[in-house]
């Protein structure tokens, strides 16, 4: 029979090495920081159009990542989109009159939510709703507006 001590040592080494490798990859080579912040709190925002916004899209303020989109669903009564944002626990002093806008990164990139701070003295907390929102800019509507305004000006001349 093979020497059991060597067997056990090498096996143990192999198993530990495997788990370490998996752990290192998971923590160092992925976007794990964007997940599961146990300190975080959830707020909601209502949009008439979320455009191409996806769950797990980043939420930034002044370009700094402060949270993630965790849920997008339709309000059956108002037919608006209700977006749930999980805000990082480190940011507890976001004024409750902050505006949430759906922006596009780059010209044709991913959509994300950008927060512009208001001036209120009361802050967002668990369950708050962001009242001021700016929906996504849909490219077709924009082109449509441009064309019709072009007609208006040339027609009016």
């Amino acid at each position, binding site marked *: 029979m*093979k020497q059991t001590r060597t067997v056990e040592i*090498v*096996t143990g080494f*192999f198993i530990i*090495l*495997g788990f370490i*490798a998996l752990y290192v990859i998971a923590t160092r080579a*992925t*976007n794990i920081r964007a997940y599961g912040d146990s300190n975080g709190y959830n707020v909601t925002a209502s949009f008439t159009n979320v455009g191409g916004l996806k769950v797990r899209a980043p939420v930034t303020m002044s370009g700094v990542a402060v949270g993630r989109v965790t849920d997008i669903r339709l309000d059956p009564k108002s037919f608006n989109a209700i977006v749930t944002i999980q805000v990082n626990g480190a940011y507890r002093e976001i004024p409750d009159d902050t505006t949430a806008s759906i922006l596009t990164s780059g010209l044709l990139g991913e959509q994300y939510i950008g927060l512009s701070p208001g001036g209120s003295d009361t802050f967002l907390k668990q369950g708050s709703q962001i009242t001021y929102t700016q929906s996504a800019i849909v490219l077709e509507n924009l082109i449509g507006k441009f064309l019709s305004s072009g007609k208006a000006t040339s027609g009016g001349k």
Partner: protein
Amino acid sequence: MRLLREAYYIVLEFLEMLGACVLFLMRLIRLIPQSLLRPRLIFQQIFSVGGMSLVLIMVSGLFIGMVLGLQGYNTLNKFAATSALGTLVVLSLLRELGPVVTALLFAGRAGTALTSEIGLMRATEQIAGMEMMAVDPVRRIVVPRFLAGVISMPLLVGIFNAIGILGGFLVGVGLMKVDIGAFWSQIHSTVDLHEDFMSGVLKSFVFGIATTLIAVFEGYYAQPTAEGVSRATTRTVVNSALAVLALDYLLTAFMF
């Protein structure tokens, strides 16, 4: 007309093998709880199945990672997008190359060893002997090996990927002078824990089950002669490879 008949037989044979394999799997699963009472046996097998493949996997991972770094750099350079090299290396490894290449190497190294070991026991009547002593050879011999394979595969893939990323890093940043900050920051923002990492882990589990199952199945049902064992070993490699590649497509289509 003859060709059609040939094809018909091949399909029938394939279905038969698939069915027999799955039934065998059910039998193995039913015996797992009993087998867990003897962890010593399982550890012994993890050593021979996983531990002995370690060096092969590590070296292969390093080379594949380095090639990814090299090829990736050459291609991205044409689009002046070399800062995406890190993402390219990590995504390729985690999603596809890690699970698939490791599974193929595993089938070749550990799979054939399992098949020939069990087949030889069958040929020298050790399995019949065990049955005569009222010990279920499937529980005693096959299940520990099966569990060892299923446990070892994800770990091996993890090691393969980690070293592969290291290889890509060494070539990309060390050799081709890609900016180290760009290399890692893009990775952190693009590689997703669920979509990329977890799906890779899922793939390695599935591949582990498939390759180990095929290996022990071929060994257990091999013809009890020297020729029978060697043919079974060949079948293990071929069938494992086909199964892994087919499953890879199915899983990828399902997950992405």
